[in-house]
């Protein structure tokens, strides 16, 4: 199993404490993500964005959440055998976990390099596959954690604090 962590400086202890406790969320929304379903991928992120907008989350933070979440959704539909987006809304943060059904990321460090991509022709025709998805997720989240089993499933978790 390969693993990747990136946490914003100063938030390491707080974010890890949250992950190990995982208290009950105020709002929990789950969305199924189909294979190469570029029409529906993004609906989960749009829904979460709407909930957070109603809660009055700052537009700049809202944009970070929407971009990170949408990129992750696109990754699942573009690269995996399908999966689920679990989103948990709290008073001070949003925690989103994407679980797919494989086939796993062979080399996560490589996948994090901007411009590197394994996208096929269809994905590129859809305007994706520039190798910027994971870097965009990292840039916009306070915590990014990826766990992947070669030939198996991948789990990608993000946390973004509202302030």
């Amino acid at each position, binding site marked *: 199993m390969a693993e990747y962590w990136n946490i914003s400086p100063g938030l390491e202890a707080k974010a890890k404490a949250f992950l190990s406790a995982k208290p009950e969320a105020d709002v929990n929304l789950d969305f199924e993500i189909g294979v190469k379903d570029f029409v529906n991928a*993004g609906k989960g992120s749009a829904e979460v964005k709407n909930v957070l907008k109603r809660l009055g989350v700052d*537009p700049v933070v809202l944009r970070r959440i929407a971009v990170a979440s949408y990129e992750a959704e696109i990754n699942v539909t573009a690269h995996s055998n399908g999966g689920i987006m679990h989103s948990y809304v709290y008073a001070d943060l949003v925690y989103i976990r994407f679980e797919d059904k494989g086939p796993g990321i062979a080399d996560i460090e490589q996948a994090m390099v901007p411009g590197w991509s394994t996208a096929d022709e269809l994905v590129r025709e859809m305007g994706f596959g*520039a190798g*910027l998805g994971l870097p965009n997720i990292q840039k916009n989240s306070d915590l990014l954690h990826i766990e992947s089993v070669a030939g198996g499933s991948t789990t990608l978790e993000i946390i973004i604090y509202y302030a």
Partner: protein
Amino acid sequence: MTIKLNDFLEKVNAEILTPDIDISGIEINNGYVSDMLSDVMGTAKEGQVWITIMRHMNTVAVASMTSIPCVLFAKGLKPDAAVIERACQEEVCLAVSDLQVFELAGILYRMLNL
């Protein structure tokens, strides 16, 4: 400086595809040109017009996620009705102009005195 979105769209003879969205109050201060969606999400900002030839449904989703108020399609390339409908729901203004990307960007650049 900022200009009214409406003034720019008029200047480039753009047809507004989402007339139900009220854009009279929208001000723009910049633009972004790209057909790669992740590039747009990584770089484009609020207050920018996005000039592109990418007409897929994902374009609307990216504009919405990135808080881009208006997508301007160049070369007279109109998206499908379903894309326009989605844009109305997401409150993203779509417009189309017969001019090419380079010309559209140039006109906006000049109008903004950049």
